[in-house]
């Protein structure tokens, strides 16, 4: 459904001649929808993620919470975050599924200096290619959501792939498949935004959540994982940044320093070239003022 290559039109039945619309794609941007208002924190998504990705078990310790561990890990990409919160005298127990947000403008990718270590598909999935990863960890500091995690054994960084392997075969991600209440959905971005809109209206009209809203931060061009929140005016309650941004150093690196450097380097190369044209090669000077000799041309 979502792998850009598989969804390109290649042939059309009973159609003579060239294929019209060849290489055009259906709706390509995918999206994971998470309704935290109907999440029950059952952790089925956590288990499905560990099992689909064949992650090894890790030892955990009790930490005064139902949360499995303090944050996602290199081998634990999907974590329900539990937060206790008091609202208008009413107690709320917030449960949010935390994982890679698959940003439209991915900070990890911006920050990554390794050729081909992070790729973004046409459908919006941001995927790490560990064979190209140099383990520098820039992606970790480039992420506004603290998602990529370093594996000290392999010296590589890992994170949620949005099950690009499953999605490429037309399947939903493992976490979606496992969700018992249906608080998770998967589909095209426009469909998911529409479902979210309906749910938000319902929360406002029927459940008294006047500030209910959608979390799809435009500061990073939107995300391919969107949340419906009881109170979207305070995403911090759920451990989400209100205005996630890529750290400016990486923006500067990407949009200023890197092109400028490249331009300067190009200039240098050009300068060398024109200097050669204009001045010609530098010949070795006679040491003792003897007669000037012309070297063999082949030797250059």
């Amino acid at each position, binding site marked *: 459904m979502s792998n850009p290559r598989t969804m390109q039109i290649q042939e059309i039945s009973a159609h003579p001649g060239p294929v019209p619309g060849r290489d055009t794609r259906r709706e390509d941007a995918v999206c994971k929808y998470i309704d935290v*208002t*109907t999440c*029950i*924190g*059952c*952790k*089925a998504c*956590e*288990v499905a993620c*560990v*099992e689909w990705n064949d992650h090894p*078990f*890790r*030892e*955990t*310790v*009790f*930490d*005064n*919470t*139902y949360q*499995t561990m303090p944050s996602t890990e290199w081998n634990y990409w999907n974590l329900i975050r539990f937060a*206790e919160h*008091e609202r208008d005298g*009413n*107690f*709320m*127990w*917030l*449960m949010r599924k935390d994982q890679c947000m698959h940003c439209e403008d991915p900070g990890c990718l911006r920050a990554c200096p390794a050729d081909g270590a992070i790729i973004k598909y046409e459908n919006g999935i941001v995927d790490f290619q560990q064979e190209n990863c140099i383990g520098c960890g820039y992606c970790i500091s480039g992420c506004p959501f603290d998602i990529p995690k370093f594996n000290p054994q392999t010296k590589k960084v890992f994170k949620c792939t949005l099950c690009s392997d499953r999605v490429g075969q037309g399947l939903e991600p493992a976490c979606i498949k496992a969700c*018992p*209440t*249906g*608080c998770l959905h998967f589909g095209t971005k426009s469909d998911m935004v529409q479902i979210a809109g309906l*749910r938000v209206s*319902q929360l406002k009209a*029927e*459940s008294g959540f006047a500030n209910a809203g959608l979390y799809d931060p435009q500061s990073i061009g939107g995300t391919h994982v969107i949340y419906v929140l009881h109170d979207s005016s305070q995403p911090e309650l759920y451990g989400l940044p209100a205005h996630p941004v890529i750290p400016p150093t990486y923006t500067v690196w990407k949009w200023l320093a890197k092109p400028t450097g490249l331009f300067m380097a190009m200039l240098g190369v050009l300068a060398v070239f024109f200097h050669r044209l204009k001045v010609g090669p530098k010949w070795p000077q006679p040491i003792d003022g003897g007669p000037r000799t012309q070297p063999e041309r082949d030797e250059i």
Partner: protein
Amino acid sequence: MTNGWIDIKNTDMMLIMGGNPAENHPCGFKWPIEAKLKRNAKMIVVDPRFTRTAATADLFLQIRAGSDIAFLGGLINYAIANNRIAKDYLINYTNAAFVVKEGFKLPDDGLFSGFDGKEGYATDTWNYEQGGNLGPAVPSSGSNSTSSTGDHVKAGNEPQTNFEKKSPQVSSKPSAAPEKGQSSAGGVMSSQTGGGHQAAGGPGASGQGGQRPTPMLPPNTAYDLSLTHERCVFQLLKKQYSRYTPEMVERITGIPKDQFLKAAELFTSIRKDGNMKKAATIIYAVGWTQHTTGTQIIRTAAILQLLLGNVGRAGGGVNALRGHSNIQGATDMGGVFDIFPGYLKIPAPSDIDLATFLKRATPTPSKPDAWDSYNYWSNTPKFMVSFLKAMYGEAAKKDNDWAFHYLPKIDRKYSWTEMWDFMYAGKVKGLFAFGMNGVAIGPNSRKNIEALKKADWLVVCDIYPEETSDFWQAPGTTKEDMRKINTTVFRLPGAGFAEKDGTFVNSARWLQWKYAAVPPPGQAKLDQEILAKIFLKVRDLYTAEGGKFPDPIINLWWPYTVPGNPSLAEVAKEINGRALADLTDEQMFPGQMIKLGQQLPGFAWLRDDGTTACGNWLYSGSWTEAGALSQRRGTDDPSGLGVYPNWAWSWPANRRVMYNRASCDLSGKPWDQERRQVWWNANDKKWVGNDVPDFKADSDPQDHMGPFIMNPEGVGRIFAPLAAFADGPLPEHYEPMESPVANPLHPNQSTNPVAKRYSSDADKFGTVDQGYNVICTTYRLTEHYHYWTKNNPMNVELVPEPFVEIPAQLADRLGLRGGEQVKVSSARGEYIAKAMVTRRIKPMMIDGKETFQIGIPIHWGYRGIQEDAGKTARTPANLLSPAAIDPNAYTPEFKGFLVKIEKIETL
């Protein structure tokens, strides 16, 4: 469940109480969510702590563990006071109009009439008056409405309601046992509640031997359709719960009055102005059953639902969520000491022959004479004889009373706790423990551990070494102690659930066949193979050596192809039942014939003449000549109500919502046309619908047959007469056996007077004066399953260690921070774990006293990944819980007992 999981999506209002479905039934919880998303249904959650269910609720109330009757009684009081009741339903489908005997006394002082101390209650006054219409406005043309048995009200003499709706014509025909009922599914209509072994009414509902003369229900009950007679059930109900004022509810439950009123207003809002369109459901689990008043809590919920007209309707009902994949099946198949499969009673020693037993166990109709009653349990002889034929085959003959004398007779309550008490007393010498972990289950696990030390032998069949098989290394057992233990322990390697085929029966009563995924590993064997091999060996011994009474063993019918390893398909077919002769029934099934040896199409074909064999009449129809209906996976749902009639098979007779006749008004028209389940088709003169009608298919509404066909009254029991319940015909709030306060309603009779306690030296109870001043409740987590997932790394990763949930305010007083070690002590034992300090449990004011509750998840013990690695204190939670027993269901009080709590140094 009276309804089913999927049906919850049809509701407008949910009261989730005594259960935590989001955590313990997460897959089923999609339906409450569906109701919220699709119908804007409201969800009220009442629990001792803010659970993951509460996190999705519209309204959450924190209640004191063990005070549920007070809350529900308060709702009844509110509904009556604000006239939010279903009047037509109440008068015609419940016993609200029945008049109760003179001399019956409500428990103003904590005792109903008839209490005689040692023996419990004499139930003579817990009965209906005889004598027809006692109401004021009787348009009677004669005197025969008060005539005695045998006379019948003539047409036109029908009782009128004082309400605007017309009352149906009452026929003059006798309300005899069913003879010609017929259903579209080929089975006579019938149904039965999950705990129905008490439901058949009549005397001696238990196997108590019957020392007392057993009073009978009157055949021609007195009634007052105006509901004004001072002894009519409605007036008694009103009086009983008028004491449960919002102020009293606050004192007992700790729920502030304004919050209670908010919940009461919201829940009863579905019956605003008497409009019958909407439906509310009540969803519960063992948070209700595990009290000394457990059965009566559920009764209160049932009364509330009858009062609001919610039973039998899509989106309504009283819905028990079963805590195991097949606990419903275990109950249906007689996994309780006092019932046989299909909720047939187990005979008592006084039942000297089959006729005596059947006379006692088969109820006769008891109702206003003018009304009709199906009284489906009148078929008990057919079910019983067919059961005996399935048990003993050829050896069950007419001239030996169908081998009735082979059956065990029970002379006392051989309940779970009783069994351990007997072992503790040295009377039970050995135990087979299959599919359960008796030590960890408790209650009062220390007593169970000590009991096993006194046994001669123990056989444990499990997939892991566990607390029961390893009782000899329970914490606190020294090497010296171990040397003194002479119990021989046999450990048999069982098979896991994915290694077995067979059926699971879920909470919605569906029999669903499952297939084995992998064979059992190594030497592990299927349960049926282990049991069959033991049985065959025992039978050989009896055959060779004789014995006191070898006949039941030697003659047990064992017709399986591989006797040492019966296939479950064969067993399932045997349970369904088959014909032992060519059968015809021209009256009910004209033109049809079941040939000798064929599978029966349903329980309507069962006979009491030995020509049918059936292991469980309720399951008859599950494996017919058409094959295993439990294996069906049809996903058609033509009505959109989530009936899915071709998915698996639901007992009884594949109907999905029980008592569904009550979803229609008196004339047979659905209360809500958009959720039509069944209805009366006047042209064809029969009941039809989207579901299988739970009713006599050709019973004209004019005949006024009651929708609750399993009761001899035909109507729902607000007042439960005679010995149906040991502790009263109407529920009353009693304090838990260990309580921080005296009962505010009647301090001199604080606890349930007939709750069972044991008197061994291991059975101790604590009081506030002794320092046990904190209420403790126990429960399960989503992340674990009872006592065996502690052996599975994934589950251990999710929640690694035992913990105790402690309110932040209490933790402050104890100088305790999250993650620090605490010791929780009851009068019976100690539990050591880390503290989870939380704001999800708040301090409560109980009868003016500040009271704290704590919660303990039960999943750990002394065998498991963390336990074996020495990383936990290895104390099972049920070392704390008391063996205080509900007198009806014999369930221990795992919720709401007293403890004290202190901070200790880390291990």
